[in-house]
């Protein structure tokens, strides 16, 4: 029996390999380096690997985008993938600066909250340096997830992305029970959704005889009489993916997890995971099920409407700043879904795709910035999570409150912020794609959503500060850098979005390779 060696395009996959390689090195550092050296080794390793991967993405974009899937058709490094990789790597880099900041993570995760062991670990000043390799594995998974060209690779990527995140969620230094609860919830629900995804994959394999996205698409026209397998499979797959982006009715995990997780990890999930999951969602629905759009489109309409409305309305009732941002993230996932259904001919598809890519970039950056601000507003017991504690922040530290207000206005989509152009791009694509009613719902939800963003601004600026209000910690250079970068990007892209729009357009121009 002859086995031909598989061809692997190492250069094309280099960004992935670097990140995974660095993650494995990080594990080795954990195993062999003495405790006091670990952090000093992790920081350059992690940041340099991300920067290196980003540089390689740029090199590849300049050199020309491959027109064939790599690694025997398992991974597709095409225009959209490279753009998504670029976004994820930038977002990951800045969130790592946040993770890098001290005292977000528990000193000893295994110690029972409030126990003597925990006390001892605190005094000894232990740190879980495992967070660096864990984060790198998660980021590697995020890179692979939207690039996978077959469902099995996609499943593997999903797990590589999710498992470290489950762990990271449980590592918050304060409010530890809430953190552990969030990790548990995320793990259980995430495991369910993975099972859905896998079952859907199996059924689609049963239908098409292949897990390759393009082959499933071909089979749609060729195979008859297997409708039950096809529809059930597609539905299950959809559930798995929609869970990851937090679309209603699969959004219940998001507020709990975002609230409990250490805030830098929340930032990573709100930006990187969302971007990766949308990439994967697009690939599955536009390639594998691209010719089935008559069937999934109405459902996606319903999901988009439900997600926008649920996100916007439930956010109003929140009193925890992180839960509120979680619901806001749900609403934004809904706005992005409006772009997913805006399909038509190739030109329309590329308009819709580029609008989604642009939206993901601007939303991700603003999100990270907003969570970075959240980490800086502290009470005696850690972050000042209750919204009422934010009252009068505008008087106490006008700059920080001003920046946060600006991020909120960007979420609300006020012109002269990047968020406005994101929303505009998606809505324009949707109207051109004939989804006008969806845009009207989107606009009404935006108006509802504006209410709770504005409410926080009212609290910060128009209310009097509480006498024992929270303090704003002097930011480390990392956190200050993240907030500054996010604010700058939100302003600049709010006034001159053209360069990034160009990038998104050229990335989307060739659509996904098959």
């Amino acid at each position, binding site marked *: 029996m002859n086995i031909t060696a598989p061809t692997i395009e190492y250069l094309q996959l280099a960004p992935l390999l670097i990140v995974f390689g660095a993650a494995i090195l990080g594990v080795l550092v954990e195993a062999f380096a003495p405790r006091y050296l670990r952090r000093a080794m992790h920081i350059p390793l992690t940041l340099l690997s991300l920067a290196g991967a980003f540089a390689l993405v740029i090199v590849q974009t300049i050199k020309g985008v491959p027109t064939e899937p790599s690694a025997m058709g398992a991974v597709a490094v095409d225009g959209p993938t490279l753009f998504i990789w670029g976004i994820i790597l930038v977002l990951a880099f800045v969130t790592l600066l946040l993770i890098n900041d001290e005292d977000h993570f528990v000193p000893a995760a295994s110690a029972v909250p409030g126990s003597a062991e925990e006390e001892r670990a605190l005094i000894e000043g232990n740190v879980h340096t495992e967070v660096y390799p864990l984060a790198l594995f998660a980021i590697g998974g995020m890179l692979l997830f939207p690039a996978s060209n077959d469902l099995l690779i996609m499943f593997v990527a999903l797990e590589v992305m999710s498992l470290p995140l489950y762990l990271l969620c449980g590592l918050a230094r304060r409010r530890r029970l809430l953190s552990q609860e969030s990790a548990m919830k995320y793990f259980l629900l995430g495991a369910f959704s993975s099972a859905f995804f896998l079952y859907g994959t199996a059924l689609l394999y049963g239908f098409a005889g292949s897990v390759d996205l393009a082959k499933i698409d071909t089979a749609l026209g060729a195979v008859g009489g297997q409708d039950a397998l096809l529809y059930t499979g597609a539905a299950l797959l959809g559930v798995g993916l929609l869970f990851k982006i937090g679309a209603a009715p699969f959004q219940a995990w998001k507020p709990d997890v975002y609230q409990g997780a250490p805030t830098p990890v929340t930032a990573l999930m709100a930006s990187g995971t969302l971007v990766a999951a949308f990439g994967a969602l697009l690939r599955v629905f536009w390639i594998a099920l691209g010719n089935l759009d008559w069937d999934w489109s109405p459902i996606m309409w319903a999901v988009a409407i439900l997600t926008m409305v649920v996100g916007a309305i439930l956010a109003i009732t929140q009193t925890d700043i992180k839960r509120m941002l979680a619901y806001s993230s749900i609403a934004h996932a809904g706005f992005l879904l409006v772009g997913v259904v805006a399909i038509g001919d190739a030109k329309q598809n590329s308009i819709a795709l580029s609008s989604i890519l642009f939206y993901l970039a601007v939303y991700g950056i603003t999100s990270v910035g907003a969570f970075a601000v959240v980490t800086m507003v502290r009470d005696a017991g850690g972050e000042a999570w209750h919204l009422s504690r934010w009252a009068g922040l505008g008087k106490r530290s006008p700059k920080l409150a001003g920046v946060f207000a600006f991020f909120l206005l960007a979420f*609300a989509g006020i*012109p002269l912020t990047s968020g406005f152009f994101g929303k505009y791009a998606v*809505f324009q694509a949707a*109207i051109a794609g004939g989804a*006008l009613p969806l845009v009207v719902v989107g606009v009404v939800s935006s*108006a509802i959503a504006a209410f709770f963003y504005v409410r926080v601004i*009212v609290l910060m*600026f128009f209310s009097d500060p509480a006498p024992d209000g929270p303090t704003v910690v002097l930011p480390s250079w990392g956190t200050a850098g993240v907030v500054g970068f996010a604010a700058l990007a939100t302003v600049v892209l709010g006034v001159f979005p*053209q360069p990034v729009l160009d990038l998104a357009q050229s990335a989307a121009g060739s659509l996904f390779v098959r």
Partner: protein
Amino acid sequence: MPWLSILMGVSVLGALGVAFVKDDRLAKQATLAVSLVVLALTVVMTVQFSPNGDRFQFVETYDWIPAFGVHYGVAVDGVALVLILLSAVLVPIVVLASWHDAEAGKRSVRTYFSLLLVLEAMMIGVFAATDIFLFYVFFEAMLIPMYFMIGSYGGAQRSYAAVKFLLYSLFGGLLMLVAVIALYVIAGKGTFMFPELIGAIKDPTTQKWLFLGFFIAFAIKAPLWPFHTWLPDAAAQAPAGAAVLLVGVLDKVGTYGMLRFCLELFPEASKWATPVVIALSVIGIVYGAIVAIGQTDIKRLIAYTSISHFGFIAMGVFAMTSNGASGATLYMVNHGFSTGALFLIAGFLIYRRGSHFIEDYGGVQKVAPVLAGAFLVAGLSGLSLPGLNSFVSEFMVLLGTYERYAVPAVIAATGVVLAALYILWMYQRTMNGPTAESVRSMPDLNIRERWVVAPLLVLIIVLGLFPKPLLDVINPSVKETLTNVSVTHPAPAVAKEGQ
């Protein structure tokens, strides 16, 4: 000379500079200086405008976001020019009037004045934009400085009023956004430039939907009955200076938008909607006036009179006669001056006594004759006394409406009578009669306040006697607008059916 960009640039740079000035007094002086420079430049620009030249002058067009077909396109026609002039005149007056406003709440003084200059840049931008997308950007973005001015520096109910103002306007704006996008997509011209989009939408049904998207946003902004409920709250809670800009200029964006965008982009739909709009306007005129009579709060009373006045303006716009439209445009300017004066003098009054309520005053005329006299002139302008500025415009609007719609014009004319009632009755209760104990030691207007009031009173009287220079600028542009409205549909519907 790129006049319009210079105007906006000076304001924005001034705002940035003021934001970083440490000394409050210096910040105020700098703001005043910047706003006076802008006024001077605007006057120079106005002089160079040739009324009978091209419709759009001082044209600047650059690509801004080619991916969306968006330009940085600014230019003015006569209508836009007079409104920019109105803004440029009001801002320095408001700066001077607000000298002590920001200190009352112990809030940052320089932020207030910086916001004022940002707002000025946006007011100029919104009237100058010839790119519809750019117009929309200014239309929405200018809410934010006003929101902070009301919310941070306003009265007791300020945050409620600020949020109500923002959400109403934002909701209207978002509906307009849908229409803006749809206009771009359906017209299929790949550009947002207004001149190229005139007549681009032919299908009547499409026109109607897009018209509604724009019109509702403008009707909320203006505001027309029944979209008006945010205005009394916002105007009453805003500091007097912000209230002047809110009612005097920001709300004009609504009526300006109706004239410029609703009529010219969707002529067919505008004609279709005219009966409803005229009806709403007439209701607004009478309703605003009657409710104003019943107000106990001075600022709320003035706000309701404005709702009545906006009814006149909208009626003039939709009468689609040259008298009506020119009169409405002139009305926008006059109303800015007369209501501005009313708000500012009321603000001085309230600042002295610390009460919004009419019943807390009485006999002010005896202790503060200058204040009372100025209030009377501004009030008489508000009720359109012949010889004062508002009379000309109100007369033109009524005449222009009567040419087409006699009955509504007659009903609207009762608004004039009601106006006499609400203004004079308020004057009588606050200024005449026995001097109330609490106002006995009230000082008269000081030098600064006289400087605030004097230019407005001069304008009220001068424009009442010589409205011609303004009308000379307005008329040609209005004519072009009305030509565009009927040019796309030369044949009246009756003639078509006859064929």
